[in-house]
């Protein structure tokens, strides 16, 4: 009787912690999503203001490029946050392992959208160039900054996620052999 009560209490505690974790995660995701959804119309608005102020298309289009980049980031963030939140452990093992191997891969199909966002950011910088910098001058700063960011991303993946991908692949090979 006492043991059952203890088990009930520990499960109640666990459910409480899980609900708290769910709500913390949901509110964190909401905050980040709101940030992107605020930035998208903000850049569109800035684009219109620039265009009507200066009468130049380039500045308006530059801000629209930033808005498009934010839009892509927002959708990617939404997709990834849902994917990581709802890792489904009730899938058949083979499917779960394939999903895990894909989730922890360095390059995924969706990564191509990230490339699109970077192109829009670059285009936005070129069209809204500060201090009338030339295309080449912007690339001299933009390309190395992006390369450093990619390198950091690669190291994070290599030390944090690569072993998870490798393990999922090894298990898959073991099952499918």
């Amino acid at each position, binding site marked *: 009787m006492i043991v059952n009560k203890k088990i009930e209490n520990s*499960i109640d505690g666990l459910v409480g912690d899980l609900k708290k974790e769910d709500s913390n995660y949901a509110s964190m995701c909401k905050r980040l999503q709101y940030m992107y959804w605020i930035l998208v119309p903000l850049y569109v608005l800035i684009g219109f203001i620039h265009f009507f102020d200066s009468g130049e298309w380039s500045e308006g289009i530059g801000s629209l490029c930033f808005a498009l980049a934010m839009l892509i980031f927002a959708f990617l963030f939404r997709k990834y946050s849902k994917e990581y939140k709802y890792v489904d452990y*009730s899938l058949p*093992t083979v499917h779960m392992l394939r999903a895990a191997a894909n989730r922890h891969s360095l390059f995924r199909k969706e990564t191509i959208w990230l490339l699109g966002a970077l192109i829009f950011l670059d285009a936005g910088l070129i069209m809204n160039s500060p201090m009338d910098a030339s295309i080449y001058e912007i690339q001299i700063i933009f390309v190395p900054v992006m390369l450093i960011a990619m390198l950091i991303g690669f190291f994070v993946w290599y030390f944090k996620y690569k072993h998870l991908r490798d393990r999922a692949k090894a298990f898959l090979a073991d099952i499918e052999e």
Partner: protein
Amino acid sequence: MNKEEKFNEIISENSDRIRRICSYYNANSENQKDMYQEVLMNIWRSLDNFRGDSSISTWIYRVAVNTSLSYNNMSIKHMKLIVDVGTENLECILEDEHHKLKKQEEIKFEELEKELNLLSVIDKALISLLLEGLSMKEIADVIGIKESNVKVKIHRIKGQLRSKLKGGSYDCK
């Protein structure tokens, strides 16, 4: 029924089953408790995806096996399959229609346990499901491969165990 009620109902009806699976993988009672908690957490996280396409027991086994594969990243290779001497279904691993086994239970099970622990993690998962008394079809549903593949794998594992145990005190003639 809300998520919490559904979760409590599943746990109250399946806690023994979950504890048993956790005990297959961990000798230490603390590790068993940790894995049990991890399975419960993953049941909670996956509960919204339960559509009733498979039986609740198959669903629970999937979550438990998948958790065991994701559990304790660093020591997965050293994970032990703990076999209780009293496990009812243990004989089904070495059972052969045409050959009756001699009853030297304790030595036989000890040696069998030793050999089971040398199996790969996936083979251990298959054997743990077999020990739970699941049919080949049910094991195929849990793992996500064809029933024929499960049969081949189980047959191969049994063959490996038989050949390894041949030289010892337990001889499957």
